[in-house]
Each structure stands twice: as structure tokens, then as C-alpha cells.
């Protein structure tokens, strides 16, 4: 056991399966003074829109917000790389007092002239909401002068949680959708939503669909282009991953354009196969698609299965902790870990809703801890108490795992390795195997004071 207690306000956001009735509180603001692993509204918008590679992303505010999100995601582009630059109006005292609209206007105009983007996203940060800049008006003005869409993203950090930032990003994308020509889009066509091309994942998935005979109209937002987003309403189906960020957009598109959607995940063999089969079933009029999908899944599984078994023989019975942004990813990870013979002893997310946590509860064994909006102290407490061998999370969770001698797998957006699809499952298994089996852990057994143990 550890010396770490739980704040009273936090107790309802922690559930011990098999030990208490399920009554989890979630979707609340973070407790003041707790070290939440969450970011803010701006972060939610920024991560969703970030991979649009031929758009200008201008952060309106003091320098921090732009500086901390410069080149932050491993989202690859096959062409322009404007998204990897960090642009900020870099507001100073003067603008805080007199307003920053003039600066925003000049900054935008100059950047558009210099970089010739296909559209511009203007992120309003905390301060903009306070000093009262009319960002919408400036965007309209610049848009009419420069002839490209200039879209305000209302992402003031304090106006909600990261999820509200997803909503603001979806709203921004939605202003583009429906403004392009849908000529030439066939009947077996989809948009891939909630896939950000980390390490080239979107390309792998697009390749699967190509082999199945399914046309990909747009990917939002991995390796995406403004033109493709504009015509995405021509697709016949929206296939939504990472439901937290993009489900809303799918719903908006269903309402306005009548495009149905399905929710999928591309993490793990099981979920990837399920995703491809679900898409194939949707286009059931074309039986070739299902036939090709079956062949594809068989071929891909055959390719990695023997190696997976080798990893599994070592990893069997090892214990994993999962703490991710959206709960939907945790579902896939639990299944993927199960495929490696591992059990999940902690599962949590920054932004899950009660439906998500019920699913997590049903997926996990007794004794598993389920956490909403956890902090480093809680995470360290439970990885020690539950004897984790592996922690899956992002950069902020990594040192917690490493300090306590626990292996780590980065499943966040900064990673460079593709973990989606079948090849991704192989990469994932290899990474998990490599971190859990590393010989370095055996050296940490000595007490911290350096006294001899044996």
C-alpha cells in the first residue's frame, strides 16, 4: 500500500470493480488544486485541427499556447507541412489593454500572403475572451479580402474542458464541409473521421480500404487537405474513430447531409477486423467488397499472428495500467492486451462519459480500478498497489511509470510509431514486449539508499 490518500472531491471519480456499487461521476470540471492530466479547451481544438496540413493555424493570444503546441503531434503529411509551424499573435501588455484586433488582422494578412494556405484557423485563447476581441469580424474581413476561408475557433481555455474544444474544432470543420464539388465520388465511399495519421496510421488504413474497393473521400484530419474536407459531404458513410473528438461532426453531417455513420477503432487485430467488416457490411450491395475484406483480414492476420504468439508467450499474465485521453481507446487497448495474454488492472481516461465507464466496468475483471480525470498521485498509487508491469499513456504519465520501475508504452499523439491496424498491432506488441522484458528493471531492485539487498 502507499501513503497516498484520495481527495474527497475525487472519490466519486474512482471505481473499484467488485468492491463497491457502480456510481461513477464524470464529465465534470477538474478539481481545483488537483494535478489533472487534462489540458484545456484550446488543447482539444488544437489536436483535432492540427493535422490539416495546408491550412494556416494562427493562435491568437500570448505566446505560451502556441509555443507549447509547436510540432506537438506525430501527424504526418504527404505534402505541405504548414501545420508543423507555430504561429502566434504573441500579444503583449499593450494589446491586453487596447485590444488585439488590429494585430490579428495584420498578422493574418501577412501570414496568408507569405504562406498561401488554402484556409486559416484562428484559435481564440483565454485572454481573447476577456479582452473582448471580435475574432469573428476580423476573420470575415480577412476572408473576403484574401478569398480563402478564415475560420474562428472558439477555444478559450477556461470555457469548459478538452471536450468542448473538440466541439469547437468540429464546428470549424463543419463550416468547410459542403462547400466543395462532389463530382466523381462513387457509391462505395467513406470519410475516415477521428484518425490523425500519427506515424502514418491513416495511410495504412486508407490502403486497407483501397484494397477492399472502398473509396476514401477525406480523412479528418490525418494528412488532410482543405479541398478534401470541403467535398467530404459527398461520401456515403462516415467511419468514426476516437469517438470523443469526432462523433459530433459525424452527427452534424448526418443531420445536414444525411450521411450515416458507424463507430470503429483500428487498435488491435480484433477491432481493426471488426471495423473493416462493418464498413464492408454497410456496402452489402457490392458483395465483392466483403469478399476482398475477408481476404485482406486473413492475409494481414496471417502476416503478424506468429510473431504475436511469440510476444504473448512472454507477456502472458502480465498486468497493465491504461490511462488515455478518450475512453474509447481504452476499450480497444484492453482487447489488444488480452490478445497478448495480459490483464488490465487500471483503466482510466481524461474525458470518458458514464456510458464509456459502464462499458469499461463490464470489460474488466474484479479488482480493476477505473479512474476518471486522474492525477499523478492516484496513478502512482494504483500502479504500485495493483503491481502493474506496464503503463500505457502519454508523455505526462511516462515518468510516473518509470520512477516506479514500470514499463511504458506511449499511445498518445506525440509518438512516432504507428500503432493502428494489423501492422500497428505488431508494433504495439513489439513495443510492449521490449519495455516489459527490458533488463534494466532488474537493476532497480536495490533500495534507494543503495544498501545491499542480497
Amino acid at each position: 500500500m502507499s501513503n497516498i490518500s484520495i481527495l474527497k472531491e475525487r472519490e466519486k471519480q474512482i471505481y473499484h470493480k467488485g468492491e463497491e456499487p457502480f456510481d461513477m461521476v464524470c464529465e465534470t470540471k477538474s478539481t481545483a488544486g488537483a494535478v489533472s492530466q487534462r489540458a484545456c479547451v484550446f488543447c482539444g481544438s488544437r489536436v483535432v485541427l492540427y493535422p490539416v496540413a495546408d491550412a494556416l493555424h494562427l493562435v491568437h493570444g500570448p505566446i505560451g499556447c502556441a509555443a507549447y503546441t509547436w510540432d506537438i503531434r506525430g501527424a504526418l503529411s504527404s505534402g505541405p507541412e504548414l501545420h508543423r509551424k507555430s504561429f502566434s499573435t504573441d500579444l503583449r501588455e499593450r494589446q491586453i489593454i487596447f485590444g488585439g484586433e488590429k494585430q490579428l488582422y495584420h498578422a493574418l494578412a501577412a501570414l496568408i500572403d507569405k504562406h498561401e494556405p488554402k484556409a486559416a484557423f484562428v484559435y481564440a485563447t483565454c485572454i481573447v475572451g476577456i479582452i473582448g476581441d471580435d475574432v469573428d469580424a476580423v476573420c470575415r474581413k480577412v476572408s473576403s479580402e484574401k478569398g480563402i476561408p478564415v475560420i474562428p475557433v472558439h477555444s478559450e481555455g477556461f470555457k469548459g474542458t478538452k471536450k468542448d474544444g473538440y466541439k469547437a474544432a468540429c464546428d470549424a470543420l463543419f463550416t468547410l464541409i459542403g462547400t466543395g464539388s462532389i463530382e466523381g465520388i462513387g457509391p462505395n465511399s467513406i470519410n475516415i473521421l477521428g484518425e490523425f495519421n500519427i506515424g502514418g496510421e491513416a495511410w495504412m488504413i486508407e490502403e486497407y480500404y483501397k484494397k477492399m474497393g472502398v473509396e476514401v473521400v477525406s480523412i479528418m484530419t490525418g494528412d488532410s487537405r482543405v479541398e478534401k474536407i470541403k467535398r467530404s459531404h459527398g461520401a456515403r458513410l462516415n467511419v468514426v474513430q476516437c469517438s470523443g473528438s469526432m462523433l459530433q461532426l459525424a452527427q452534424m453531417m448526418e443531420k445536414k447531409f444525411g450521411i450515416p455513420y458507424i463507430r470503429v477503432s483500428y487498435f488491435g487485430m480484433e477491432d481493426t477486423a471488426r471495423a473493416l467488416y462493418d464498413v464492408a457490411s454497410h456496402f452489402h450491395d457490392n458483395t465483392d467488397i466483403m469478399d476482398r475484406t475477408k481476404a485482406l483480414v486473413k492475409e494481414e492476420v496471417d502476416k503478424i499472428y506468429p510473431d504475436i504468439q511469440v510476444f504473448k508467450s512472454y507477456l502472458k499474465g502480465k498486468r497493465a495500467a491504461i490511462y488515455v485521453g478518450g475512453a474509447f481507446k481504452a476499450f480497444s487497448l484492453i482487447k489488444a492486451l488480452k490478445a497478448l495474454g495480459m490483464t488490465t488492472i487500471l483503466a482510466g481516461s481524461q474525458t470518458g462519459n458514464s456510458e464509456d465507464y459502464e462499458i469499461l466496468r463490464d470489460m474488466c475483471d474484479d479488482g480493476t480500478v477505473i479512474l476518471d480525470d486522474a492525477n499523478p498521485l492516484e496513478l502512482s498509487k494504483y500502479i504500485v498497489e495493483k503491481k502493474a508491469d506496464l503503463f500505457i499513456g502519454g508523455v505526462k504519465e511516462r515518468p510516473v511509470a518509470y520512477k516506479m520501475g514500470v514499463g511504458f508504452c506511449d499511445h498518445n499523439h506525440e509518438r512516432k510509431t504507428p500503432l493502428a491496424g494489423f501492422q500497428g498491432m505488431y508494433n504495439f506488441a513489439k513495443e510492449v514486449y521490449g519495455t516489459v522484458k527490458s533488463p534494466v528493471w532488474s537493476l532497480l531492485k536495490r533500495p534507494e539508499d543503495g544498501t545491499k539487498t542480497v
Partner: protein
Amino acid sequence: MKNTALKKEHYEATTNACKLCTPLGASLAFKGVRGAISLMHGSQGCSTYIRRYLISHFKEPIDIASSNFSEDTAIFGGGANLKKSVANVIRQYKPELVGISTTCLSETIGDDVPMILNGIRHDADGAPLPPIVHVSTPSYSGTHADGYVGAVRALVDALSIRKNHEIEPSMVNIFPGMYSPADLRYLKEILEDFAIPYRMLPDYSETLDGGPWTTYHKIPHGGTSVSEIADMASAQASIEFGYVTRKGTTAAGLLSSRFNIPAYNLGMPAGVRATDRLFDLLSELSGNLIPDRHARERERLLDSYVDGHKYLFGAKAVIYGEEDLVAGMFAFLTEIGITPILCASGGTSGKLAETLESLRPEGYDEPITVLQAADFGQIEDAALGTGADMFVGNSKGYSITRKMGIPLVRVGFPIHDRVGGPRIHHIGYRGCQELFDRVTNALLDVKQEATGVGYSYM
């Protein structure tokens, strides 16, 4: 001297900033206080982004709490949130000090933090709270370097009290710049070898570069204690590092005006000459000769300068980062024959150009091109076409050196794309030696790769 003033016809955006926001520097300084927990008064994102940024460099757990503004807070003021967050952070971390930095949001809505804090000196049971130190760090003013200096000053301002009228003979206060944990450990070693009793603030040499744990440390061990900071008011002298610090705005300046403690201002002790000034001062203050092993270290360093000089002369380097670091690297590189063709900083003191001019070594007649309040967009534009042979600075210059096909010698903060950033020495003879070898070998590497034959001797 060419000092590129960045007067523009119209306001231009900052492209790839070469600076960070003020609260980051304050959080870093608070990490150097024993048992301290950092709390940011603003939106959740500020603390999370800054944590992530620091963690990616230090690769250590770095907890920063947030008062977590909501829309209501922004309208009605952050007092209630701040009080609640202080209570929660004390309950969970049981800290010896709470270091509060503000953000652009709380500053703009005009929260009177000292007044809010005045109302919470005791917990719900009437027990006294640990000291709570507040530093004003609106991110629209200054840079992270200013936040760092400001937090150190705020700690001394709030905590340093002379208990009696006695001055502790030979006790020295040390206020290092934003150096690496390895630098801080080395600095302490030097002081110990001189047998100089000292108090150093901040000291994150252990908190941000420690070993593995068997039980979780809510707050990593190490750092300067609150009582040590209190006693800084009784020292014989203060030594502060920083080429561009404004007189009177620093902790040493404050101790000087409030308690009459002489303040010695040194720039970053990088390079032999600047390090000599530090060792001479320590020698003078302690009355001891330079300890033998440091004298030997200096000799080995000079010997290596001679061994490597032919590979360096006239090589062109671009230096960037915090103003103090840029000045330090300028002093070091010019003394080994390298020409800094571009010296750039996002820093806003306006003093970089004059500082570099004052560091011009005898016989060095190259023009000094300075970019002040610069971003990486401007650095790139200015560096392309100069025929630069290398960049010396943090890892954020990589996208440019990659484009130019030249090496980047990583120094300072942040180093996000390599391990070992916290273990790099920059200061003293040891840091100088380390940098000298890395700079020389980076150029040798280029030369070796460029030959068609792959020779195996230098």
C-alpha cells in the same frame, strides 16, 4: 556591430517562438525549493502544457496544480478557486511551500492574489499553513527567463528575514541562472571544494534529475529549504549569474538593498575567461586558493583548446536561446576561434547587443549580428545564406539545421529530442570542456563525412 532592430511596418505574427511564457520559468524555480509544490492560477491547460514541456526535457515527474478557471471564475474572479486549490494541494501533497504563479487570464481579470492569500493563512482546523509564495507572471509580459528570475526574487522577498543582527561570516548566497541540474551539482561541488558555506536558490539538481524510487515521492527529494531561504538574509555576500538581469530586480539586488548584503553579478560562467572570474571571486571571498583539482581541470581544458584549435578557427556558428545563454555561448565560442555569425534570442530585455559587445574579446573584429525579441522564423531567414557551419542552442533549432544540413550542438533548455539534457554541463571548466569536445567533434564529423575516402585519422 549590426543590431537588427525588429521595427516592422505592421504587426507580424511570431513564427516558431524562441521563448516560452513567464509562468514556465517560475515553475522551474519553484522546483528548486525543498518540499515545494507549484500551483498555477489560471486555466487547466497552462499547467498541463507547461508540465508536458518540462517533463519532455527533464524526464522526471513534474506536478503543477491548477486553480482551474471556469467561465464563472473568469467573470466573478478567481478567489474561491484559488483558495480551494491551495487547500486541496496542501491536503494532498503536504508541502513545505506552495509556489503560486499567475497566468495571463488571472492577471487580466485583475485577481488580487496577495489579498486572496491573506485570507488563508490557516487551514480549516486552525493549523498554520506552510508558506505560500506568489509571483506575478502574466505571459504577455517578458519571457520564461523573467519568470524564473521573478520567482527567485519573490521567494527571497517573502521568506528571507534576518533573525538577529549577526552576519554569518563567509556564508555566500548563490543565485544560479537557468542551468542544468548537472550544472547546479557541479556548482555546489566547486563551492564545497573552496570550503565556502553557501545557500543556493533555486536548487533543482536533485528534484529534476533524481534516481528511481521504491515508494512514490509526492514531492521529489532535494531543493533549498524554507529556513535556508530565510537565512539568506544573513549571508556575507550574494553571487548572482545573469548578463542581462536588471539591477535591483533580482533576489541578490533585493538582499543588497534590504539587508546591505553585497551582490556580485557575474554573467553565465561559460568559457575559460568567464569561469576564471567566478573562481577568482570565490577565491577572494573565501581567502582560499583555487582548489587543485579545479586548477588541473582548467589546465586540461587549455591543453584541449590547443589540440583542437585548427579545426575550429573561422567556423561560423548561430547561437540562440535565452539571452544569458546566448551571451555565455558567445563568450565561449569566440575564445576558441569560432565566429558567432548570428546571435538571437526571444528575450526582450533589449540589452543583448550591448552585452555581446562588452564581451568582445581582444582582437576579435568580426561584426556581431544580433536578433533581439526574435523567433525561429526570423532566425531561419537570417541564417540561410550565411554559410553557417553549426547551430548552438536548444533542440528547437533542429528543423532549421536539418534544412541546412549542418550540425546542431544541443545546449540549454529545452532538449526534447535527446536523452540527457539535464546532465549536460554548460558552466565552469568542466562544462566548457564538455562543450568544447562536442563542438569540435561535431565539426570533425562533418569533415569526415564529407571526404570521399573516410579517413581514419584526424
